[in-house]
């Protein structure tokens, strides 16, 4: 990387006469600069390049700097893009919803029903899946669901199969869940563990049974964490390439598959960039809306 390293200039400056505030500001700059530079170098600059590239053109399979809206017009009007957009958005939202609902009982148990030692161990176990690379986990899932895999070997003799999961949208969602579920359980566990215990006791004390307390007190109290967990699942699923390719069979394609296709067939980086920019904009809007939901003053329902 060509970015200059942050140079601490506090050493040479005479401390006499400088206010305490200035010293503190310099301290903040010194420690804040490396991550800021990192983000600038590996996120903002490529992002700018990506946006710029959407206006370039491809001539004879060669990328040429240009200022054309043709890529935007083509992609936004293309039926395959619109279908893939709706399909990807829908599957990601479904994944976020399924993961949020499926994770909740586990998170509830970890947060309230087990001893601190068991909780520590289970949290460790939730991190273990991240030890193995994600494609490897998807390959093993593929083996599970294959026609001669463990699941069908058990189900078919029972007359319940065969289960067709591979190369279907269900397969894609299963893959998304492999990716997101451990993380959602983790985030929800932390969110629930931070709900003040005294509020739960106060609800019980006022005649609110255990199940009702989940709805009336625990979920409203943990709202921010629960929404963040669901949003994380959406973001991860929306951009994922591995699950829709290897479990979903690329048909219908998701947006990430479209990007790969545009690049592979015809080397069309500008069109791929349009899809990528659309994805980034979508995620930003989704994040903003969800953060608004999480932190906004909630209208009370009776």
């Amino acid at each position, binding site marked *: 990387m060509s970015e200059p390293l942050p140079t601490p200039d506090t050493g040479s400056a005479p401390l006499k006469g400088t206010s305490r505030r200035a010293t503190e500001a310099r301290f903040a700059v010194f420690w804040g600069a490396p991550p800021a530079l990192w983000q600038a170098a590996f996120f903002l600059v490529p992002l700018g390049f990506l946006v710029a590239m959407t206006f370039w053109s491809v001539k004879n399979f060669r990328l040429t700097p240009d200022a054309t809206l043709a890529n935007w017009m083509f992609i936004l009007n293309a039926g395959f893009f619109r279908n893939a957009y709706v399909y990807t958005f829908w599957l990601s939202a479904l994944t976020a919803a399924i993961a949020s609902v499926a994770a909740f009982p586990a998170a509830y148990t970890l947060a309230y029903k087990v001893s601190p030692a068991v909780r520590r161990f289970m949290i460790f176990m939730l991190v273990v899946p991240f030890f193995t690379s994600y494609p490897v986990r998807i390959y093993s899932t593929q083996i599970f669901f294959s026609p001669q895999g463990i699941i069908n070997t058990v189900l078919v003799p029972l007359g319940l199969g065969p289960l067709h999961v591979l190369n279907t949208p269900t397969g894609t969602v299963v893959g998304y869940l492999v990716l997101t579920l451990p993380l959602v359980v983790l985030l929800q566990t932390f969110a629930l563990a931070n709900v003040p215990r005294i509020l739960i006791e106060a609800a*019980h004390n006022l005649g609110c049974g255990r199940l*009702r307390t989940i709805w009336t007190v625990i979920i409203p109290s943990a709202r921010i964490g629960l929404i963040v967990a669901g949003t994380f699942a959406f973001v991860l699923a929306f951009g994922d390439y591995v699950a829709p390719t290897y479990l979903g069979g690329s048909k219908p394609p998701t947006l990430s598959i479209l990007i790969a296709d545009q690049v592979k067939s015809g080397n069309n980086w500008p069109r791929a960039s349009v899809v990528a920019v659309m994805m980034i904009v979508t995620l930003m809007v989704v994040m903003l809306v969800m953060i608004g939901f999480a932190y906004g003053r909630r209208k009370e329902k009776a």
Partner: protein
Amino acid sequence: MATPMIELDRVAKHYGNHAAVADVSFTIEKGEFVALMGPSGCGKTTTLRMIAGLDQPTSGEIRLWGRRLNEDAPWERDAPLVWQSYALFPFLSVRRNVEFGLKQRGLPAAERRKKADEWMERLGIASFAERGVDQLSGGQRQRVALARALALEPEMLLLDEPLSALDPHLRVRMQSELVRLHRELGITFICVTHSHSEAFAMADRVVIMNEGRIQQIGAPRDIHRRAANRFVAEFVGGNNIFTGTARFEDDGSIALAGLVGTVHAPAPMEGGIVTGGAATLVVPADRIELAGTSTGAGNEVQARVVTVEFVGSTVTVFLETEGGCELRAQRSLHEMENTPLAVGQPVVARWSPQQGFFLPG
């Protein structure tokens, strides 16, 4: 004898090897204001939580009108609690907080609203019914917590250190307001506090606890005048405690010879003191008079003034005898204005033998 409203029968609560409550038995009658008092860690809050069902007794039985309560879930009991930190629901408005319990009981919306309005009006919080609880001051939150509990119209109200989070001037106001509410509602109040002044000011009966056991139960006045043991005598404050060797006199009283000199007091009815044995005498500080010269009547101790402390309209004079025994006398400010005292000044501390009492055993 009629069945008492609440009865704790040999109740204990253990956490591993530690007994938060070791062995507690007492009864509470309908309409009483009972204070559970003691230093922190004495088990008073755990006892309150067991009555509410938030903690399960390890052994013993809690009964309500003679019926065993141990297995009832907290939400099946009618014992709303006002928490020290209020425990209001931050995601609900004041009104929704007050309505919370009523909603759980399945009251229709219109009735809930009416009841909540009544209680908010009564506790002076009606004007911010629609506000969020995070916009309220500590005193206002306390009122919301009270309204939330009382809106259920329970037969008992539990209070956990209800005044300790308030400013001193608010504390006194709230104290008299709680007493007024108790009188007007006629329901049972059980209040946990570490402050003897709060307990004595509000309660009909005080249960003093230490290390998971009850030290004394009685009306505030009786506890002040007849501490059951040294812990109580020290904890309630304002007492002089003298130790020494006892000797029975011909008139049946006991002479105590110790650091303080030789002083007299009536023999305790419970007995337990023998000539030549050790004994502990308690003399309330407000029963000690200060004089310039000896008159030869009653108990008299020569001492010097060490400090004079003014708290409100009460003056506490700390004294020390030649032999190094410390005493304190509590007099009214009015009285002290006529006879000013200087530090180091010699005085005679005097009290009638009837004003002192020996601790049993």
